[in-house]
């Protein structure tokens, strides 16, 4: 068989990974719906369709009603609403499939080179690995498609007559679909700027010539920039709509910075702690390293526009995980641009005696790639979970709606019973409420961070996380809140907030399950629902699960666990224990249960049993900080201070920046009568790592309990020097004076400080 034959075979085999890739992409795009914000889009899409206009003020919330709102995604909302209305959730997933396939198809066209398909295929796989992390029904999908189209047109078809009208249409659509529309003009601007650099600035090596445009192309590019910039004005809000992304961008540095701490997709994918870890964001790191290396290999002939694109999107993606696919596309583009420019021999140190072996090697490479793609696809798509409600297995990649992330049962309860009013809710459930029960129910907050703003979000945190009762009273009255949906489907409800509503005399619990609690204000309007659905949690019994029906399927008893957690937060320990017992029957290796069991038994002062459970949990998750703290405290409760010390020493070694560990260790030393060590540890943490004088006072008290007054005084003097005129410190000192410190010296010292 001749070399020509092997060359043809090599080409044929190089097409196989492409087919496999598209096949797997289609499967992966069929991921069940889990997105939170989609529901808000559906709700708005319905409103726009029914009323025939796009409101430029808020209509969804009870807290920001009437506030100006640039709805930059209205077109997306209308599209998804219609698809959902006609075809249900599968319609949306089909849309996702089409968008994904189209996007990757454009990428393929950009990188298609008959002789170098190995490179294209390899980088397309990297793109797939990063892109699929954002397979969720959001306007971002359209942005990514338009991104790909822009690159396709600008990189390959700048000289074509149809380039301009196509980009214009794309830009108009983009402006009305997603706030990232400014990328369009931005790409063009990068191109214009790069060309200017090539022409005006002396660049290293052959960079001035690499990717250089003709004069005609340069002019075309500038015209395109103007046209696509103008296209941005084609939106319902006009100039406001154009300026919107810039406004959002500038607000990110100020008060809106808070969102980056709370919203997962806005968090940095790589930080200093995870930089060298292969477990975190490994494909993203791989993409960065590989694409960077292509610049090294091609350093003599770098295309400046590619370099700028790469740097900008690298920075963009390093700032927020949601932007990784944009970087993936950029990395793909620059990698193939660079690698297509250099000789294969410069990259790979292998030399083949015969050309035939080179083609054979490529065939084997492509076959291995196909196998890997299929195995990856199979591993992903075979993920199933057990739906305990329906007693059946559900595949994650078989379409439909994923229930676990939504308070679906609670919202179904609201819908079925036609409950109305202004509701207090958490950030994660706002969009789902809007999508399902608007306009009967108006939410307190939803996912539109840029509309609510950082200040409101801070207030929301005080209400939700801290359970600030005075503020809750105030806001309930201010916004005439008549209901509260406390969502526990994605996170545990903060104890203070839960206790507020549960113990408030004018709030009644009408719904309780793993996904949420619903309270209604005891007012005449809510009487009929209250009378019908009032719940007494003290008599709560876990629902019976038919284990025979579940059979050997692996079911995660998160429902029992979430209910137990909520019950425990309300100090309803017996029902909580029943739920946990059921959870272990369903899955004996659901070890979260053990932490909660330990907590409950510690509360009941059955420290031996608490210890038993905490040790199991820590045994299973030795790097779990909370588990280790729990175990240490269990030793403490059992008065085994030497063992407690050992655990705190491990905590301090493993988490040296957490001051809590030091304070506890210091206390443990005190209880074990190692006073000198207690003082030394205390001085390590205070005041450098923490200025918590409350913890300091506890140590002083414990030292006094042990009659180690000299050491108590040493710490006291040390803290006083730091706290000086701190009023809160003086207040706490009064308690110290009257309570435990019998030593005359300290009492007097306390008085002295207080009087000063």
């Amino acid at each position, binding site marked *: 068989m001749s070399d020509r034959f092997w060359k043809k075979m090599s080409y044929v085999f190089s097409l196989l990974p492409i087919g496999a890739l598209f096949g797997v992409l289609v499967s992966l795009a069929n991921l069940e719906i889990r997105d939170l914000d989609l529901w808000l889009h559906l709700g708005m899409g319905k409103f726009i369709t029914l009323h025939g206009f796009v409101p430029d003020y808020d209509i969804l919330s009870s807290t920001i009603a009437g506030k100006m709102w640039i709805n930059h995604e209205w077109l997306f909302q209308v599209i998804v609403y219609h698809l959902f209305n006609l075809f249900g959730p599968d319609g949306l997933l089909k849309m996702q499939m089409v968008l994904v396939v189209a996007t990757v198809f454009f990428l393929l066209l950009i990188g298609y080179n008959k002789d170098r398909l190995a490179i294209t295929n390899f980088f397309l796989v990297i793109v797939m690995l990063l892109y699929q992390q954002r397979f969720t029904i959001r306007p971002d999908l359209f942005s990514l498609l338009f991104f790909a189209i822009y690159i396709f047109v600008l990189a390959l078809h700048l000289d074509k007559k149809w380039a301009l009208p196509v980009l214009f249409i794309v830009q108009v659509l983009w402006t009305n679909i997603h706030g990232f529309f400014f990328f369009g003009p931005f790409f063009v601007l990068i191109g214009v700027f790069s060309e200017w650099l090539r022409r005006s600035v002396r660049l290293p090596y052959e960079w001035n010539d690499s990717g250089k445009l003709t004069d005609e192309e340069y002019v075309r590019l500038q015209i395109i920039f103007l046209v696509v910039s103008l296209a941005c004005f084609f939106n319902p809000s006009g100039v406001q709509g154009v300026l919107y992304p810039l406004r959002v961008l500038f607000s990110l540095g100020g008060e809106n910075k808070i969102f980056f701490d709370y919203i997962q997709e806005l968090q940095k994918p790589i930080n200093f702690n995870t930089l060298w870890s292969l477990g975190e964001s490994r494909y993203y790191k791989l993409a960065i390293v590989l694409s960077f290396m292509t610049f090294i290999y091609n350093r003599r002939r770098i295309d400046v526009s590619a370099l700028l694109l790469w740097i900008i999107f690298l920075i963009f993606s390093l700032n927020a995980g949601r932007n990784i696919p944009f970087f993936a596309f950029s990395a793909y583009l620059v990698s193939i641009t660079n690698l297509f420019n250099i000789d294969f021999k410069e990259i790979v*140190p*292998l030399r083949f005696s015969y050309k035939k072996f080179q083609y054979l090697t490529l065939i084997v490479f492509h076959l291995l790639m196909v196998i890997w793609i299929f195995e990856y696809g199979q591993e992903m798509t075979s993920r199933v979970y057990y739906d305990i409600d329906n007693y059946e297995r559900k595949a994650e990649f078989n379409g439909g709606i994923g229930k676990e992330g939504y308070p679906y049962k609670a919202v179904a309860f609201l819908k079925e019973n036609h409950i109305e009013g202004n509701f207090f809710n958490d950030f994660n459930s706002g969009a789902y409420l809007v999508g399902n029960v608007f306009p009967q129910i108006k939410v307190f907050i939803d996912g539109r961070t840029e509309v609510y703003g950082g200040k409101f979000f801070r207030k929301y945190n005080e209400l939700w996380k801290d359970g600030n009762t005075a503020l809750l009273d105030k806001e309930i009255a201010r916004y005439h809140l008549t209901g509260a949906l406390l969502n526990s489907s994605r996170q545990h409800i903060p104890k203070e907030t839960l206790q507020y509503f549960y113990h408030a005399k004018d709030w009644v619990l009408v719904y309780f399950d793993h996904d949420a609690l619903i309270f209604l204000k005891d007012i005449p309007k809510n009487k009929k629902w209250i009378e019908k659905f009032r719940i007494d949690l003290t008599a709560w019994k876990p629902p019976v699960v038919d284990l*025979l029906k*579940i059979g050997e399927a692996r079911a995660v008893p998160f429902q029992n666990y979430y209910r137990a957690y909520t019950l425990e937060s309300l100090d309803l320990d017996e029902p909580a224990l029943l739920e946990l017992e059921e959870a272990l029957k369903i899955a004996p290796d659901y070890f979260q249960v053990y932490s909660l069991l330990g907590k409950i038994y510690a509360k009941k002062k059955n420290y031996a049993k608490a210890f038993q459970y905490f040790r199991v949990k820590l045994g299973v998750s030795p790097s779990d900080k909370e588990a280790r703290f729990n175990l240490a405290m269990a030793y403490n409760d059992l008065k085994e201070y030497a063992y407690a010390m050992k655990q705190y020493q491990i905590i301090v070694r493993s988490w040296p920046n957490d001051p809590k560990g030091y304070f506890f260790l210091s206390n443990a030393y005190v209880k074990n009568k190692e006073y000198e060590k207690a003082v030394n540890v205390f001085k390590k943490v205070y005041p450098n790592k923490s200025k918590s004088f409350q913890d300091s006072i506890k140590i002083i008290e414990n030292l006094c309990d042990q009659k180690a007054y000299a050491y108590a005084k040493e710490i006291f003097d040390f803290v006083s020097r730091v706290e000086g005129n701190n009023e809160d410190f003086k207040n706490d000192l009064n308690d110290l004076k009257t309570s435990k410190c019998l030593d005359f010296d300290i009492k007097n010292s306390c008085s002295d400080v207080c009087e000063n």
Partner: protein
Amino acid sequence: MGLIVIFLLLGLVMFEANVEIKDFDIWLHLASGRYIIDHFSVPQADVLSCSISGKPWINHSWLFQVLLAESYRAAGFEGLINLQVAIVLLIFILLIFLGLRTGHQLLPLSFLILVLLTFETRLTLRPDIFSFLFLVFYIFILSNGLNHWRTLLILFFVQVLWVNIHGFFILGPFMILIGIIAEWIRRHIRLPYEWNNIGKLNDDEYLFFKIAFAVVVGACFINPYGLRGVLYPLNILSSLSGESKIFFSHISELAKPITFQTVFSLEPYWYFRAAIFVSFLGFIIHRKKIDISILLLWGIFLVLGLSALRNMVFFVLFAYVTFLFHLDILSPIKFLEEREKLKYVLAIILKIFLVAWIINYIGALSVRGYFDFDTLERKSEFGGVSKRLFPYKAVDFLVENKIKGNFYNQFNSGAYLLGRTYPDIKVFIDGRTEVYGPRFFKKSQDILYGDYKYFENTVKKYNITGVFLNWMSDRVPEKLLKNLYADKSWVLVYFDYDGAVFLKDIIENQKWILRHRVDLDRFVVPKLDMLKVGITPVIPFQYLNRANAFLALGFLEQARLEAQQALRIDPRITESYKLLGSIAAKQKNYDDAFCYYRQAKLLSPHDLEIRYYLAQGFYYLEDLDNAQKQCEKIVAAEPQNAKTFYFLVLVLIKQEKYEEALKALKKADKLSPYFSEELKDVEDILKTKNLFGPLKEMNEIIEKKKKVRRSK
């Protein structure tokens, strides 16, 4: 850099060879070694057992036993471990020398990692490690060329040692014979490519080979048994088919490392597979210049290695040699020929990776250990004697109380009993399969599986006065245990997690019976101080073993308490749930039984035995469809599982799927001729539904099986 890798590798070898004593047979060798030293003679007939006393015995490892006994006398168990370390270190030093002689460093050292990983599976002080050493020695000598009388002398000496240390001494002459055959083939048969010229010997060398063969064969006669000793391995080989096949299913080291089901998988023993692949690749790349003697030996050692786990090391040692032989060959892929600097840089980087891997591996090994219930501390797997495998407490009991007699015991505990108690106690059976023979072994298994009548006859025949049951390294022999406990002529004097000791109620045993009689009704579950255990991972095998024994004896409450205690210690242990399920099933609490079996299955999803219990759970709750599904999954994975087929018969009969039930029954009958408990239930159903007539064939099979049971 290369030296660093070598030293680290040797360090790793020493570390690994320092593994705790966990071999069963070592105790037999110690007992035998003691006997030889004390009596200054190698016994020609059995002296250790009460059942084969006086039977001719070719003790092919006598010299090893003497060496062992002397090392133990001099330095205890540490002395034995040091001996092992020395031998293994010597093996690897020779291998490294062989590798360095090729002028390469990185590749031989990398392959030696595969050798070491395979060696790990046989790091236990047995005569085999001397065979490995002698094999490597032979290779070392032969690779230097056979052209000097000194070489003959060395080979003679090595062969004499080998023949008196291990039955695999035959490999020595065999290797030389292959060399001769290979040369003959080169001279007389037209081989492909350039094979006729590769490794060709000149006439002098060829003659020397033949003389060497005669010399080493002659050396084989220098053993206490003369010709019988020489023929011994051949006799063993010839007996491996036929009845002796029974040993392969009962002795783990005789199992095949790669089966048809696992041939395309990387596990188990990925390093063994890698060695096969890499060494085979050498032949492919070097196909034009194959040395036929190397090819033949590689093939033969591969067959040997694939036939049993214990032989894997022989293969990888030779695979290493093959790999070295092919190292210098140029291939179609020329690696970095024009970039010397890059080549060296890459080599350094790869060596750094190797160093990092070795250090990391040593780190991982050093934390290997388990919980010692006696000291409540972690015991490393390195140094000392294993506390997890031997019924040491039970034997301590025998030793401390100076109990004597002929004892019935299980196969796995025979050697340990001998090593600790001989000559006070003579065993019923031990690890010398070739002496006892397959028929005796099978009979001893029958006793364990419940043939009490045969046991009683055995007691009379061999004047057995004690029974030693061990469940550290064996399953609880439920039927035998139950029968013994119920038999008034036997008294339980010791019972714990490692085993039980019964003494015959005769005058000679009275003093021990009076003092140590055990009343299981009063047995108190020992509590474990969980505070001391902390978060150390503990496998609560003590509780589980006792629970299993209690369950077999029908002490359900005690069994439950033990299992609950095991769960308290670690709720991830499948066995605990399985036990609780079995207890609940016996108490006819089928809902709980199913719940526990289900939990066990979730923890061990691939465990077929647990799946069997789950099938039972479904059956108890009348979910016959699912019961059938579980059975079908089991037999799909294990087509020889007779027990499941019998159960499937029951399930199908209950669903009135008579045709399928008959098919299953026929299959089960083929696999196991014994009457199964499930067939009793099948009979009941047939009787109740009056189906004996219509299901004539099924009835006939059942009747046939009942006859087999009665005749036994």
